[in-house]
C-alpha cells in the first residue's frame, strides 16, 4: 500500500481521529463468538452459582449427620442420598466443590504470578540472575512434586490450607517461567523497551510496565489452564490423604470415600466424580477459547 492509498483509506474510514476497537474488546468478542467459549463460561458460572448458592437452599449443612439415614439412596429428605456417616451427599459435595474451586483458583493465580516474575527477571537481567533462577527452575522440575507435597502434608492440617495452596503453586510454575524467559529475551531487544532504557527508566519498572503487559495473553491463558491442573493435583493428593485434611472436605477426599462404597451405593461416587469432570472440562474449554481469542493468527470462522 503506498502513502496516497493509505491516506485514501483513512479518508474512507472517517479520518484518523476514529479510534480502533480496544484489544480487550476484540478479544472478548472473539471469545464469545466461539461456541466453546460460550459453553465453558456458562458452565463455569453455573458451577460457581451451585457451589456458593447451593448450600443456602439445602436443609443440611456439611457438618450435619443424620443418624436415622446411613448410606441411603437419593430421596426427598436427602436429594443426593447420604454417606456411611449419615452426611448429606448434596451438602458435602457442594462444600468439597467450594474448597476445590477456591484452592484451584488461588493456586493458579499464585503460580502464574511466580512464573511471570521469575521468567521476566531471568530474561531481562540475564547473567548471574538468569543462571541462578534457571537453575532453581530446573531443580524444582527434577524434585518429584507429589513426594514433597505428600511429605509436608502433616503441616496442612486444621485450617492451614493456605499453606497447601502455596505449596501447590510452587510446583506448577516452572514450564511457563521458561516460556516467559524466552519471550522476555526477545522483547528486550524491541524498540520500545530500548527507548525506555535509554530514557533512564529503572529496570524493575520496565519489567512491570512494558514487559509483563506484552505477555499478558500468554499469562491469562496459562492461569486458566493452571486452574484445572491445580484442581486435578489437589484431587489426587487429597485422594490419598495428603491434601485437604478432615474434617474439611474436598473433591479428592469425597472421591476416595465414594470409591470404597461405589459398588453398592453408586450415589456416593458418581455425583462427585461427575461434578469434578464437568468443572475441569469447563475450565479447559474457557482456556482453549481464550487462547484462540488472543491468537491473532487463529482463523476466526470455520
Amino acid at each position, binding site marked *: 500500500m503506498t502513502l496516497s492509498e493509505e491516506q485514501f483509506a483513512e479518508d474512507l474510514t472517517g479520518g484518523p481521529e476514529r479510534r480502533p476497537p480496544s484489544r480487550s474488546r476484540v478479544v472478548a468478542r472473539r471469545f464469545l463468538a466461539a461456541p466453546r467459549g460460550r459453553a465453558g463460561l456458562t458452565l463455569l458460572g453455573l458451577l460457581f452459582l451451585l457451589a456458593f448458592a447451593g448450600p443456602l437452599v439445602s436443609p443440611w449443612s456439611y457438618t450435619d449427620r443424620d443418624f436415622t439415614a446411613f448410606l441411603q439412596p437419593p430421596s426427598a429428605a436427602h436429594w443426593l442420598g447420604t454417606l456411611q456417616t449419615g452426611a448429606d451427599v448434596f451438602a458435602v459435595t457442594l462444600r468439597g466443590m467450594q474448597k476445590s474451586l477456591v484452592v484451584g483458583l488461588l493456586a493458579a493465580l499464585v503460580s502464574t504470578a511466580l512464573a511471570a516474575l521469575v521468567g521476566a527477571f531471568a530474561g531481562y537481567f540475564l547473567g548471574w540472575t538468569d543462571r541462578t533462577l534457571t537453575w532453581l527452575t530446573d531443580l524444582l522440575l527434577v*524434585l*518429584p512434586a*507429589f513426594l514433597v507435597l505428600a*511429605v509436608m502434608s502433616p503441616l496442612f492440617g486444621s485450617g492451614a490450607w493456605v499453606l497447601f495452596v502455596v505449596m501447590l503453586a510452587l510446583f506448577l510454575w516452572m514450564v511457563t517461567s521458561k516460556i516467559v524467559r524466552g519471550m522476555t529475551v526477545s522483547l528486550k531487544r524491541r524498540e520500545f523497551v530500548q527507548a525506555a532504557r535509554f530514557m533512564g527508566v529503572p529496570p524493575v519498572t520496565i519489567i512491570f510496565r512494558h514487559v509483563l503487559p506484552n505477555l499478558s495473553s500468554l499469562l491469562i491463558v496459562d492461569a486458566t489452564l493452571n486452574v484445572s491442573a491445580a484442581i486435578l493435583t489437589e484431587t489426587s493428593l487429597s485422594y*490419598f490423604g495428603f491434601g485437604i485434611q478432615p474434617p474439611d472436605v474436598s473433591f479428592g477426599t469425597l472421591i476416595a470415600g465414594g470409591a470404597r462404597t461405589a459398588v453398592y451405593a453408586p450415589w456416593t461416587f458418581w455425583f462427585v*466424580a461427575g461434578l469434578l469432570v464437568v468443572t*475441569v472440562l469447563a475450565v*479447559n474449554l474457557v482456556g482453549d477459547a481464550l487462547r484462540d481469542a488472543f491468537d491473532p493468527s487463529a482463523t476466526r470462522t470455520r
Partner: protein
Amino acid sequence: MAGFLARRLLNSLVLVAVAASLAYLLAAAALDPRSNYADRTPRPPAAVVDAQLTALNLNDRTPLIQRYATWAAGVLHGDFGRSVTGSPVGDDLRRRAGVTFRLVLLGLVFGSLAGVAAGALAAIGQYGWFDRLSAGLSFVVLAVPVVVLANMLILAGTWANERLLGHQVFLVSGEYSDGLDAGFWGRAVDRLQHLLLPTVSLSLGLVAVFSRYQRNMMLDVLGADYVRTARAKGLSRRAALVRHALRTALIPVVTYFAFTFGVLLTGATFTEKIFGWHGLGEQLIDSIFTNDVNTVAAVSVLAAVAVLCASLAADLLHAALDPRVRAG
C-alpha cells in the same frame, strides 16, 4: 557437541545431588519413624527403640547433619540404607522397578501409538468428523483425573464381569493371581487379564495428549513445500503422507515419548496404588505412611535420575533425527 554434552551431564549430576539431598533432608525432618513404635503392644522400652533407630540411621536424637552425612556416604557407595523393617532398600527397589517397568512400557507404547495414529488421521481430515470427534473426546479425557478414571474402570470391569460376561475377565487387583497352577499359557492369560484395565487407565490420557500434539505437528508439515513436491513428482497421496509428512511430524513426538517414559516411572503412582500393583509408585505412597525416610529418599533419587536421563535422551534423539538441530 562433546563439550556441550559434558557440561550438560555435569549440570545434571549436580542437580540430582542437590535434589536428592533436599528430598532426604525434607523427609528426615518431616517424617517421624519413632511414632511407628508408639502403638506396639507391649510397648518396647525407650532404650531399645533408640538402639533400633540408630542402627537404621533414623534416630531423631542424632543431629540431622550427621544422619545426612551417613546417608550420603552410603549412597555414594551405592547403598541406600535400610527401610523401617530393616530390609535393604536397594533390593526392594530393584524388584519394584521391574513391576513398574512392565506396567508402564505397555501402557506407554499402546498410548503413544494410538495417539499418533489418531492425531495423524485427524490432521489429514482437518475439520472433518473424525477431527471433531477426537478433539471432543480428548477434551473429555483430559478432564478426568487418573484417580477417578481408575476407579471408574474398576467399577465398569466388575459390572461387566457380573452382568455381561458371567465370569472373571477383568481382574482388578495385583499383577498376577497368587498360586495359580495353569501352566505357561494359563499364567500368561492371567497376567494379561490383570494388565488390561491398568493399561487402559495409563494410556487413555496419553492417547489424548499425543493425538493433540501429533495433530498440530502434522498440520504444520502438511502445508510444507516438500510434501507438495512429493505429490508433484508423482507419489501417491498415501506414500507422500506416510513417507514424507508423517515421518517429519514424528520427530518432536519421539522426543516427547522419551520424556514421558522417564516421568511415568514414578508417575504411574496412582494407577499402581489403585490397581494394587507393587511398583515404585505404590512404594512411594506406602513409605510416606510408614515414615520410611530412607525409602522416600531413594525413590526421589530414582525419580530425579529418570527425569534427567529422559530429558537427555529426548535431546539426543532430537539431534539424531533432525539434521537441522545438529547443524544449528
